[in-house]
């Protein structure tokens, strides 16, 4: 994947070379040209075209924003309620994610989503301990995370 | 006109700093205070952004970023200290 991006950049520079004009506009044009070339020949690569990943990232971002907004409102509502009707607690969440990046991303997303907070990570990087604001059903929460964030992350990182 | 909104926001934010101050003073645990301080930092960041908009200048934008960085480092330092009794 990194090779693709690098190649794209090189192509942009080659474009500028050819045009003998060093400006941002030319760079962008060159980049787009390279991108199109890469896209057209995407099956040439053994792995996926990197724009898919970018797209997945965007999706993750949007998903996250949605979750952020949603659960923020939930928390705000909880705060503003005259009586606290919550059942907080800590639950362990087994993740399938492996690499440091993935786990970090997941933990951060969990943290950023109101209502949940990653408290600790087990030494083998397999279990996240999550403090949740309202833990009526721990399994449900786990499943939610698994379906939303973990899946989205996997889409970005896994081929 | 915009200014009215901005100053209103500033007032609201300064109130929320006041709230953080309450937590900061009250505690009870140190982590509470750290969290409060972190929040103060973030609110500060927002305030300065608003001040920038209000004064129609980008002069203080650097500070915004800087506060972001520093509250982060500060909080980490506090937390690590709390956890291990040492920072480095």
């Amino acid at each position: 994947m990194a090779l693709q991006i690098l190649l794209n950049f090189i192509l942009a520079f080659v474009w500028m070379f050819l045009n003998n004009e060093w400006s941002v506009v030319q760079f962008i044009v060159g980049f787009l040209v390279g991108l199109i070339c890469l896209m057209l020949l995407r099956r040439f690569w053994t792995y996926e075209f990197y724009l898919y990943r970018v797209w997945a990232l965007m999706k993750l971002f949007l998903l996250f924003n949605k979750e952020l907004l949603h659960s923020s409102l939930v928390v705000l509502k909880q705060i503003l309620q005259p009586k606290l009707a919550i059942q907080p607690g800590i639950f362990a969440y087994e993740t399938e994610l492996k690499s440091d990046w993935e786990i970090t991303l997941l933990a951060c997303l969990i943290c950023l989503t109101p209502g949940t907070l990653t408290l600790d990570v087990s030494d083998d990087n397999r279990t996240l301990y999550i403090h949740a604001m309202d833990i009526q059903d721990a399994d449900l929460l786990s499943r939610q995370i698994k379906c939303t964030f973990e899946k989205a992350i996997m889409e970005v990182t896994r081929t | 006109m915009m200014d009215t909104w901005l100053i209103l926001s500033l007032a609201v934010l300064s109130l929320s700093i006041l709230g953080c101050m309450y937590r900061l003073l009250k505690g009870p645990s140190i982590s509470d205070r750290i969290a409060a301080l972190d929040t103060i930092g973030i609110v500060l960041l927002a305030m300065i952004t608003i001040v920038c908009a209000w004064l129609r200048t980008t002069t203080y934008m650097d500070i915004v970023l800087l506060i972001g960085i520093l509250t982060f480092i500060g909080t980490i330092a506090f937390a690590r200290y709390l956890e291990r009794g040492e920072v480095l």
Partner: protein
Amino acid sequence: MELYMSMSVGVLFMVGVYLILSKSLLRIILGTSLLTHGVHLLLLTMSRLKTGAAPLLGEGANSYVDPLPQALILTSIVISFGVTSLFFVLAYQAYRKLGTDNMDLLRGKEDE
């Protein structure tokens, strides 16, 4: 504004001094840092407050605030940063060696 600032400066001085009068080295250190804050705000207050834009000429404003006190404060901040860090380490080392941070026990009449 100068009125309020002066009062804040007064409060900073007051609490700073109060802390410095404590026994515990820790409070004393905190007191000095408050004192420093007070001095810096004082220096700022002493130039006219809010008479114009920040002294960045690129902004094209009509008037600017007095830049000189700012430069002085900067120098002072940096210097007190140096001094404070040395003081921290001194306190730390002193506590390790002397076994107390109570300045009342560090009068130095009994030994040597």
